[in-house]
C-alpha cells in the first residue's frame, strides 16, 4: 500500500445513471405503440416509410459527422434515428421514398448540422423536414390514405375545416382515421407519453400547458375541445415534438410559456389560418423564441423575497 496512483477529479464523484443517450432511447421506445398501431392501420406502406426515414437519417448523420470531423457518440445516432422516426410519423404513408429521403436530408443536414449539430439546432429537425416537404410538394403531402384501405380520403381536420363535418371521437382516440402515419392514435401516443413522464425524459410543463391552452381556447370560441385535442398531430406534437430537449427552453418557467404559445398558435391556425393543421408551424415558431425565453424567463432567484421572509 504505497505509491498508489490516485485519481483526482472534480466533484461530484457520483453521477446519475440516466444519460442523454438513454433519454433519446426512451422517446423511441415510447413511440413504439403508436408505430405498431399505424402499421396495423396503414399497412406495410407505413412500415416502409418509417424504415426509409430512419435509415436515411442515420446515413445523413454519419456523413455529416464525418464531414465535420466530429467524434460520433451513441447519443448522436439515437437522436438521428429519433428524428427519422418523428419525420415519418408526421407525413402521410402515401409519400414516395425519394421524398422521404429529401425530408431526412433537410432535417439532418440543414436543420441540424448547419446550425452546429446536436444541441445547437434552433428548430426541431423533423418538423423542418416536414415543413419543407409540405411547402414544396403540397398536393403529394396531403394525399391521405384511409386506414385499412388503399383509397385516399380526407383527414378529420380537413373535413371539419372544408366541409364542416365532425368526426366521432372514438375513432380519433384509437386512430382509425386518415392522417399522417404516427399521429392518428391518441391512445397509443398517450401511453407512450405516460412512460416518458414516468422516466422523466420530457418536461411535463410543455404538454400540460399545450393541452391546457387548447382546451381553454376551444371553450372560449365554442369549438369541441376534445375533438381538437385528439385530432391531427396535436398529441404527437405536444408530447413528442414540442418537448424535444434541444429546441425547447431549459428554463422551467419558460416551459409553461412555450407550451402555451404552441397551443395558442395551433388553434389560431386551425380556426382561421390557411391550413387545416397548425401543430407543425406553431412549434417551429415557438422554437424561434426559445433563446429569448431562456434569457428572460429564468424564474425566481432564491433569496429574492428578502423583505417578506423576515416576517413571522
Amino acid at each position, binding site marked *: 500500500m504505497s505509491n498508489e*496512483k*490516485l485519481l483526482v477529479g472534480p466533484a461530484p464523484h*457520483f453521477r446519475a445513471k*440516466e444519460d*442523454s443517450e438513454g433519454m433519446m432511447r426512451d422517446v423511441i421506445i415510447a413511440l413504439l405503440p403508436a408505430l405498431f398501431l399505424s402499421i396495423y392501420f396503414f399497412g406495410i406502406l407505413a412500415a416502409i416509410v418509417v424504415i426509409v426515414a430512419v435509415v436515411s437519417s442515420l446515413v445523413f448523420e454519419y456523413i455529416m459527422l464525418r464531414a465535420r470531423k466530429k467524434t460520433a457518440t451513441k*447519443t448522436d445516432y439515437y437522436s438521428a434515428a429519433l428524428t427519422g422516426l418523428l419525420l415519418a410519423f408526421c407525413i402521410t404513408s402515401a409519400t414516395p421514398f425519394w421524398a422521404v429521403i429529401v425530408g431526412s436530408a433537410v432535417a439532418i443536414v440543414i436543420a441540424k448540422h448547419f446550425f452546429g449539430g446536436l444541441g445547437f439546432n434552433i428548430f426541431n429537425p423533423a418538423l423542418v423536414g416536414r415543413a419543407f416537404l409540405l411547402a414544396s410538394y403540397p398536393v403529394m403531402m396531403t394525399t391521405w390514405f384511409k386506414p385499412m384501405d388503399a383509397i385516399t380520403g380526407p383527414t378529420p381536420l380537413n373535413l371539419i375545416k372544408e366541409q364542416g363535418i365532425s368526426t366521432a371521437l372514438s375513432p380519433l382516440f384509437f386512430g382509425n382515421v386518415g392522417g399522417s402515419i404516427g399521429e392518428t392514435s391518441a391512445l397509443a401516443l398517450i401511453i407512450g407519453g405516460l412512460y416518458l413522464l414516468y422516466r422523466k425524459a420530457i418536461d411535463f410543463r410543455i404538454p400540460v400547458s399545450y393541452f391546457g391552452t387548447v382546451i381553454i381556447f376551444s371553450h372560449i370560441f365554442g369549438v369541441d375541445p376534445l375533438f381538437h385535442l385528439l385530432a391531427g398531430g396535436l398529441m404527437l406534437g405536444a408530447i413528442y415534438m414540442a418537448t424535444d430537449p434541444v429546441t425547447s427552453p431549459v428554463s*422551467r418557467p419558460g416551459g409553461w410559456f412555450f407550451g402555451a404559445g404552441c397551443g395558442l398558435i395551433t388553434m389560431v391556425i386551425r380556426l382561421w389560418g390557411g391550413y387545416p393543421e397548425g401543430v407543425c408551424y406553431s412549434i417551429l415558431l415557438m422554437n424561434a423564441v426559445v433563446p429569448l425565453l431562456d434569457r428572460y424567463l429564468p424564474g425566481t432567484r432564491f433569496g429574492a423575497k428578502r423583505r417578506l421572509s423576515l416576517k413571522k
Partner: protein
Amino acid sequence: MLFKNTFVGGIHPPEEKEFTEKLGIEEATLPKQVVIPLHQCTGFPYRSLVAKGDLVKVGQKIGDSDSAISAPVHTGISGKVVAVEPRLTFMGRMVESVVIDSDGKQDVSDSVKPHPVIEKISIQEIVEAVKNAGIVGLGGAVFPTHIKLSPPKEKRIDNLIVNGAECEPYLTCDYRLMLDDIFNLAYGIDIARKVLGVSKAYIGIEDNKPVAIDYLRKKLNRVEVRALKTKYPQGGEKQLIKTILNREVPSGGLPMDVGVMVLNVATCAQIAKTLKTGMPMIDRVVTVTGKYLRNPANLRVKIGTLYRDLIEECGGVDGTIRKVLCGGPMMGVAVPSLDIPVHKGTSGIVVFTQKEIDEMERDRYEEVCVRCGRCTEVCPVYLNPSLLADYAEKGDWEMCKKLNAMDCIECGACSFVCGSRRDIVQLIKLAKDNIRKHVK
C-alpha cells in the same frame, strides 16, 4: 406550505450509509506521528508556536494567528516536534505543517483547565473559550465558530438550527454523534442558545435516520426535532433554513440576515466538550468507509493523523485503491495521496477501488449539452446551470455574474443529473473565482 419538510430542486443519490451506520464511534489507535497543517480554517494561515526539537503535550497550542478570522490549532498527542515544514494537504497544496512524533504518554498540557458550568460562565468567556479552543464549523465549511457566535449587534438572531441532516452519501459521523454523544450535543445546544440569547432551537435530521429522530425526540426536551425529507442537499444551510422556517437567505447574504444561526451537530458537541474539560479541538469523528474497505468505521481521530494509517486501521481494501475522497462523493475532494493528514473539516474518508472506478467510468465521456433542462430542475437555488456552464466555457465572467453565478452553493446536483456528464459545477466554481478576481 406546498412543499412540506423539503425544498425545491435537489436529487436522490444512492445513500451508501449501510457500511457504517450501525457502528458506534470508536477511538482510533494513537498515531505514531501526526502532521498538523497550520492552515485549517477559512481565514489566514497561522504561524508556528513551536520549533523543531520542542516537546509538546496534549492540548498545547502550536499555531496561532493575529488575524480576526482565524482559529488556532493544538496538538492531540504528546511528543517531540520533528519538523516544521511544508507538507501536502488534501487540496493538493503544500502547507506549512508541524510534524510531531508521539512519545505514547499522552501527558496533558497545563493549559487545559475546565471552564465554569453554564450557569456561572459569561457569554464573553464562552466566546473566548471557543476561540482559544480553535473550534470551527465541522460540517466541512471550517469557518471559525467564535465569529459565528458573536454576530454584529444589529442582527437579531431569533432561531438556532442545529444541522444533523447529513445528506452526503456514505457519511455517518454526524448520525453516530447524535446517538453516541447526546449529552455533549444537548449541552452544546444549551450553550449556543445562551450565547445567542435565543429560546427556539431546532434540529433538522433527514428522515432516512428514524432511529436518531426518535432518540433525540425522547432525549432533547427543549429542542424541536424536525424530520426532513431525504433529499440532497438538504444539509445546505440555505436549504435547511428554507425547509424548517420557510425563510430565504437573501442572495449574497448570511443566515443571520434572516435571524438564524446554523451550527453542525459535531460543532455543538465540540463546544460542550471544550467547556466541560477545557480540552481544545484536537480530534473529530471521521467516517472511514468504502464498499471494498474491509472494516469500515466511525473513528474519533486526532487531527493530523495520516489517511494511510486510518485505512490500514480499517483493514485495508480488497483490490487496488484508486480514488480517495476527503468528505462525501457529492462535495468531497479527491485527494492526491494517502500521506495527507486529517484536518478539522475531514468528515469522511471514502475509498474507491479500481473496480468501482472502472464500473463508474465505463461509457462515461462528456457529450454536448442537449439542453434537457434537468440541471435547472434540480438546482436548489434556481439557477440555470447549463447556461452558466456555457458562458464559463467561453470565459464570459460578466455574463456569469449577471446570471447570478455567485448564488451557486456548489452542491453539484447539476453535474450529478447531467445526462451529458458535463462538469457543470466545476465550470461554475471557475466562474466564481474569476468573478471575485476580475468583475467589479
